[in-house]
Structure formats: structure tokens, C-alpha cells
């Protein structure tokens, strides 16, 4: 089991589209993945669970993965957050 804390740096936080991108990664993973934010821990394979956390920009979230590709899935998630979900950040 591995965990990773990630800072949310995109401008709008985790709304529907970023949540979809997260689940796109976790859904394909063979590991169990959970997402923890402000004391709430949810299944990161459910888009609604992820959305409902109402994660705000600038906050820190914690992913925990348990399974054969746990390292890989965490790395992919980290990259996704670092890319700000491919949103335009200017404007």
C-alpha cells in the first residue's frame, strides 16, 4: 500500500471534468484507490464520490493505492494534477 499527497494547483478545483480524468485513471487501475480530503475518505473510482468532495484549488489531497500497479497509478495521478488537468490557466 502506498500513499501520495498532492496539491491542487488548477484554477477551478476538482469539478466534473477533472473528476472524470481522475476516474479515467483509477478506473483502469487494478489497485484499490481511495482519495482523502479534509478528513473524508472516498473510493476514487467513483466520479460522484470524487466530485462530492468539492475539492478547492490550493488544497492538498491524499491518494492511497493498494494493489499490483499502485505505484504507477499514483504517479499518473500526480502527473495529472501537475498538468492542471490540461486546463488553460491564463485568462
Amino acid at each position, binding site marked *: 500500500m502506498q500513499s501520495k499527497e498532492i496539491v491542487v494547483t488548477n484554477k*477551478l*478545483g*476538482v*469539478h*466534473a*471534468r477533472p*473528476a*472524470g*480524468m481522475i*476516474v*479515467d485513471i483509477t*478506473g483502469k487501475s487494478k489497485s484499490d484507490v481511495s482519495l482523502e480530503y479534509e478528513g473524508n475518505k472516498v473510493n476514487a473510482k*467513483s*466520479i*460522484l*464520490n470524487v*466530485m*462530492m468532495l*468539492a*475539492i*478547492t*484549488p490550493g488544497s492538498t489531497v491524499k491518494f492511497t493505492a493498494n494493489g499490483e500497479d499502485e505505484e504507477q497509478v499514483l504517479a499518473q495521478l500526480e*502527473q*495529472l494534477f*501537475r*498538468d492542471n488537468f*490540461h486546463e*488553460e490557466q*491564463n*485568462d
Partner: protein
Amino acid sequence: MKNKTTKKQKIRTVLVGVAASPGYAYGPVLKTERRKFTLDPSAQPTSTLAAEEKRFRKAVETTAKEIEELKKVAIERLGEDEARIFDSHLMMLKDSMLLDPIVESILKGAHNARWAVHSTLSGLITQMENSKNEVLSERASDLKELYNRLLSALDESVPKRAPKKSNGPSLLVAHELTPGMLMTVDKDNVLGFATDIGGRTSHISILARAMQLPAVSGLRNISNLIEEDDMLFIDGTGGMVILNPNEDDLNRFKEKLSVYNKQKQELFMMRQLEPMTLDGKYITLHANIELPMEADSVLDFGATGIGLYRSEFLFFRKGAPTCEEQTHAYSHILKKLSPHPVVIRTLDAGGDKLVSDISATDEANPFMGWRSIRVCLSRKDLFKEQLRALLLASREGHLRIMFPMISSLNELREAKALYQECRTQLLNEGVELPEVKVGCMIEVPAAVMMVDALAKEADFFSIGTNDLIQFTLAVDRTNELIANLFEPHHPAVLNMIDRTVRAAHREGIPVCVCGEMSSDPLSTLVLVGLGVDELSMTPWSIMECKKIIRSVNYEDVKATARAVLKMDTADSVNRYLRQKYLQMIIDLGISSFITSHDVKNPMDKNA
């Protein structure tokens, strides 16, 4: 009482927002959201529950199909990136957090399917709306869209009521134009748009301009303020709306509208007219576009081709698009424009945006960093995929391929060699291909210094003035402290352009200018005078540009260009140009002049 006005008095309200698309409109309001469904919370007989569950499952299937359809339209109209939101909608639809409680509510709670959907989703929506994160509470709209779709799908057994047709053309008011709404807009029944959020660069703006309809966005809470039978006046030129306008407002509106329509009509009449100077010099006017769907209307604006299609729009998403996806998008544009030419610029973006499988390091100087052709030449797999897609699409129309940010002859040669490789490969596969011109952008000072050599090996040049100015003057124009140093008429810039044009014409190849400079009235005249063959700009600038070109003599602007090339400072260039052409431009009623020039050089006025 004689007076039998039973209608309650409507309150006049003025709201100020962002001018998203020019024009004026007045008419009844059409609110987009909200649709009432009849709901029955009563307990159902146990015998019917299995059937209810089945009905629900079927509604989920129907909804999924609908969303898939919308996604297809969205990809075509707006591109892959925007269409991603529909993937999220599909995921929500399959989410057990949504499905399980609904099924449980049917089977254990003995509710009918519609009540189960309503009660479950309403709960989630409320939870979302109460979120302390303002952005997310707004985003409950995604769930609401799903809610509406599911309940509509469950309506099937009930005799289907025709969707309430609007009473003729009306003004579309919404919190935000969602991708789903944009895809279902009935073009003939919409007079204009007004939304709570969105800026000048948002989709509502791009779409409204492409549809040539007025739009005001950023109105904060108009969607809450209005009611279905309100009347609305939209001033998309000034960025303002009046809710339930009074007589004075309407008179003023009629006045403004007639002036605007006259101007617009006049401009549209010019669509037929050639962009030719008084003494017969023809200047090709092309359009810059970003979204594939913009290709649909550029010919209406009087463009005779596309001078710059920014292909990176397809790439701003997770993972690169496949060759097939790219071919599809390029073909769409080429077919729309055929037989007119379409210049497609190969990928021109920072590496971090394109390649997600390598960790993007924070670059200290991204404008001069790993971007554009540099990314393509180090990630040949991506580049070749794009070239192959371009070649496959070239069979559908008149394609020209353009490489961005070329700074040396080696780069041009390497890019061309890869292009040849892809071409040979396709020919070997038995694919027949038309001739395709391959050119490059001139936007780095090094390319200008080496322009003679480049001209011998490129089929055309396109000057990207935004980058050329930025690199020549060493001015990052996103930096507010030095933004006033970003000066298109700096003699250094004008001489760079002059040098490029002369080298190109010696080799018999055409030069296009595709930066913002091409649509500035005074710059247009200088560029034409310098001998630039083509100008490419946002579609809605084309007709004004045509008007200017048709008002001058080529010999005269040539003399102007020769004169300004000898000047020492941007100030003297600007003073000279203003003295010579300002009155003419004002007399022509060119509106963009006021915004593009006076605002940019406020200090210049006293000069």
C-alpha cells in the same frame, strides 16, 4: 375600471457585463434550464417494482446513447477537448453511487423510477450546491443536466409532449452555456445570448461571433433575475443588457440597431467585392481559426481561405489524438473551404501540454523553451502522426502545411524531411496524394536574418507578428510592467518584415501576416505597403480590413511604407501614420480603430 392591466408591473433593470459578441437584439426571453416533471412519491404495488427497475435501466441506456450522440456533435463543432465533459457525464451515469441508491429506492422503497431518480439526484445536487466552494456549487449543473436527461428518458411511456416551442425567435439566457446546450441551439430561433459567467474568450463568445449573434456574458446573476415572460434588450457591442426596457430604451435601441444593421449590411455587401486597392493591387484576405466549427462561417465573412488553423486545439487534452481523429478534424475544415486554401500549422505549444508521459520540468523561460517545432523534432512519433493525418486529409481540399517557430535552416530541412518520409510511406501504401505546399513561420529574429536561405527551401512564409515583436523587442507582453513596450510599429519590427518580404519575392514565394497586427487598420496599410501578399485575421475583422484596402492607392501606401522604414522611432512612425490616415479611417467608420489604437498608446495623443 377601464384599465384592465392584470399583468404585474415588470421592473426595468440594467446589467453590465462583458461584450462577448457585437450587435443588438430585443425580444422575449427563453430560459434554458428548468423543466417541470410530474412526480409521484406514493408507494407502488410490489408486483410492478421489477418492471420499474427495468424501466430505469432502459432510461440509463437511452441517456447514455444521447450523451454519446452529443459527444460526437461536440467533437465536430468544438473539438475533442470540450467534448471530454461528456465522458464525465457518462461516468456519472455508470457510477454505483448513483445507480445503487436509485435501484434501492425502487426495490426497497417501492417508489416508481421517476421518483427514485428525482429523490436521489436532488439529494446529490443539493449537497453539491451547498458546497462552500463557489465554483463547485456552480458545477452542480452537470448533475442537473443528467437529472433532466434521465427524467426525460423516463417520459417515454407517457405520450410525448412536443418540447415547448419558443414563441418565435428569442434571447437565450442561461447561467452558463454548457456544451450540451450549445449543441442543441436552434440557430434560426435565437436572437442573442446573455449568461451569468464567461469572458471574452469563452465558448459563448467564439460561438456567438461565428453565428454572428450578439452576446453579453459575465452578467453574474441574470439567470436568476429573469422570468419566462420578461423582455430583454442586449447590447453586445457595449456589453450591457436591459431587462424589461422602457420606451426610451427601445427608441434608442432601434436607432442603434438601424445604424448597426446599415454598417453590417454595407460590410456584407463588401463580401462580394474584391479586396483590391483603388489602383488594382489585390490583397488576399484569410481567416485565423481555432475550432473546427469556425470553418463553417469564415466564407460568410468574406475570407477566401484560412491563413492559420491552430491545430494544437486538438491536443489540449489527455493523450495525443489518434491519426484518425486528426484526419477527421482536418478533413472537415478542408471540405468546408474547398477549393479555397487552408493553412494548417503543425503543433505549436509548450511541451508540457502535449506530452504527459514525461515529467514536465518548470521552465524558467517557457517562451524560449521546449515548445513548438522543437517538441515536434524531438518527439518525432507525435509529429509524424500529425503529418500523416494532414496528408490523408489533403485529399479533401486545398491544404498547405506550415511549420512554426523555425529558427534555423536545419530545423526547416529536418521538418521537411520528416514530411517527405510520411509522404513517401503513404505513396508506397498506394494512397494517391495531391501536391501540398509546405512553408514556415517567420517569427524568430534568427529566421529573419537567415531569411534568404529559408526562402530558397520554403514554399511560402507566414509572419507571426506576435512572437516576432516579442522576440525582436525582448518584451514579454504578458508582463504588465512592460506591456507598453510591445510596439508593432517599432522600426526594428518594420524592417524585419521588409527584409522578409523582399527575400520571399526574390524567390517568388508569397508572404502572409497572421498575427494580430494584420487586423489593426494602420498596421494593415503599412503591411500592404511593404508588399505583404496575404493578411490573415479573426473572421470578424476581414470586412473592415477590406474596406480600408479598397480606400487607398497601392502606390501611396508603398510610399508610406518606404517613408516609415527610414524613421528612427515608433513615435514618429505612429505620428506620421495618424496624420496621413486617421481621418480617412474615422470617415470609414472603422470601429476597431478606437479600441485597438487609442487604448494601446494613450500617451501618444499629445504627440
